[in-house]
């Protein structure tokens, strides 16, 4: 099986799902990205990426947590799967390996 790749935004969202552990849903991810790395992202873009990651099996979702400020609508919480975590780790290792090869940094 060929090695799986993730796009930059996909990797970001996947990482955020891992960070937020069991509390990752659309708004939380948008807020966390803004707070941690000061980047504005679109809710729609995050949603689409989450669904795509779920299709690929890197995250899984459960439903729950209706609150008043959501007009009584439930949330879709995402958690990272073992496959997602190992992909994230291998991507990080690849990146580090490449970083070591940059001559100016030696």
């Amino acid at each position: 099986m060929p090695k799986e790749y993730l796009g930059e935004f996909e990797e970001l969202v996947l990482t955020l799902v891992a960070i937020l552990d069991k509390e990752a849903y659309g708004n939380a991810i948008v807020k966390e990205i803004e707070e941690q790395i000061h980047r504005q992202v679109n809710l729609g873009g995050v949603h689409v990426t989450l669904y795509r990651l779920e299709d690929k099996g890197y995250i899984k979702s459960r439903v729950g947590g209706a609150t008043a400020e959501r007009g009584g609508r439930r949330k879709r919480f995402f958690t990272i799967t073992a496959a997602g975590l190992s992909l994230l780790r291998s991507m990080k290792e690849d990146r580090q390996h490449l970083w070591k090869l940059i001559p100016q940094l030696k």
Partner: protein
Amino acid sequence: MPPWIVVMLRWICPAELVEMIEGDLIEQFHIDVQRFGPARARRKVILHAIDFIRLGILARNGMPAFNMPMAFHFFRFFFRGMKKHAGYSFINISGLALGLATVLLMMIYVLDEYRYDQSYKDSDKIFRIVSKIDMGGEILYTSFSPNALSDAIKHDYPQVEYVTRATLFGMSQALAAEKSEVNAQGIAADQAFFNIFSFQCLEGNLATALAPSNPSSIVITKDLATKLFGQYHDVVGNTLRDGRRIAAVIENVPHNSHIHFEFVTAFGPYTPEMAIWGNFGSYHYVKFKDARNVPEVQSSLQALMISRLSADPHTAGFKGTLRFQPLTSIHLDEITYAMEPSGKGNKQYAIIFTVLAIFILAIACINFTNLATVRGIRRAKEIGVRKTIGAVRLQLVMQLLGESMVAATIAMGIALTIAALALEPFNTLTQKQITFDYQSVGVPLLISFGAMILSGILSGIYPACILSSVKASSLIKGIPSVNMGGGYLSRSLVVLQFTFSIMIVSGTLVVYAQLQYIRNKNLGYQRDNVIHIHDGSKNYASFKAALLTHPGIKSICAADQNLTQVFGAGGIDWAGRTTTGAVLVHTMAVDPDFLETMKISLVKGRNFSPDGQRDTASLLVNEEATRLFATDDPVGLRVQGVNKVVQPWWALYRTFTLNRSTRRWLPF
């Protein structure tokens, strides 16, 4: 948060996702209200919601319609429906097909009219100098201009890059090569002709082909070369039997060029008597370096011409106006100029055709949409059953939209076939040579495809949206009780459609009546059962004798020109003339059988004598000419004509009208 956002989201988002997406949007809205205030938060939530219209969401709606069994099912259902309602399907599809085919052909025609002469390079910098001559009351528009123009422009107007004279040989000429002889239509022009009109040179050197140093050079087109030599390469340097040498072979003249020819010869220099301002004897084409200089050059030349005309005693009474006519507007110009080298187009026709095409397109689309809508609504039960089994809304929409799109596509296919098959007779009818290539068919095709998609969507969207929104139970019970809406819309569309149809039908009837009138109007001569053969044969006498033995042929006459298209007019003078100024009459040489053949009745005098020898100095004139001479009994009057020969003349025949306007007519 605006409520329509929720409606929109339910439409675009899959059912299992929509609740959470809505939740996230509402939560984000509350956060934004605290951060930016309600107004900005509202704007933001709208943007966020619209941001959800993306492929990643839409495609998640699950498209079982696109898997193979469903696709088969879709087409099976479509064709079953077609078979079951064969009459309806036939009317619907063929109606749209006919409409599209008509529009396609009409747009091809109109675009071709507008594209005249645009194939020449820098066509926006090329102008023809045309004249308006006021000869003491009678105004003549002619595409000829004074012979003195070209020298004047060459010497004093550096703004003009190139100028050429050109003249059309009134009749085709016989060209003979070693093995073959063909009749061909030609022009004479100056060397600069090929600098002005960009013709692709296939062989030879166009830069020197018509130089004054090679007066016997001739440039021929690819087709003529093939006719003469059987091939169009390796022909340069060959001489024709009359001694003319082929200097170059060029690509054929494009069919949408206002000037047509098969060969070009060098334009000989004018004699001093001919190169005067009062002699409007040839076409002049100019190419500007910069088209912005046109008005300046035009008014300057105009002033020069007026001063020269009044300086010459022969033309002192003439008032001439010059106009630089843009090359691309020659074909559809509002003014009809005499001596136009080929059939002129009619801008009004082009506009009428465009409007008609829009009407027909509208009728075809409305008709298709209405029929399909009505049938779609009749399928309420089917849709009810589908819903009960578990069809998703999007599936239903896709199915109904898909069916009308397929029907529209079939109609388009038929329309294309009809148009392709009809192009040949269409070309004959319109005297064009349009081929089915991208150049001439591209834009009309795009328009028809647009109409096809539009009518497909329109006819599908209504039943699709309405029916898929109604409860399954009420659908199955029969025609849904809900107000189906759109009743207004479809009724007004029907009214519009009928209005258009009535307008077109009555318009056609009026035009038909007009044409009938033109056809049956008594022109003073007989047009039925007369044919015209163009032949430069020198053995006319034996040809005529041979033909007369045929029982189907009643009479034959020869003439130097075609009666319906007489070239050239000359000034005349007569004894006892009381008016001054030039008087132009059209002349034509005919043989004694002319009157018999054309069934022209004599009013006074006698016809030419049959042996054709004694009457070389006699003339026949029409009644219009008599009016001109202001005499009751013109028989015997002496007329001084173009050739400066004094000619007594003999007979008078009934006026005949040409081109709906009365022209003076005087054969000799």
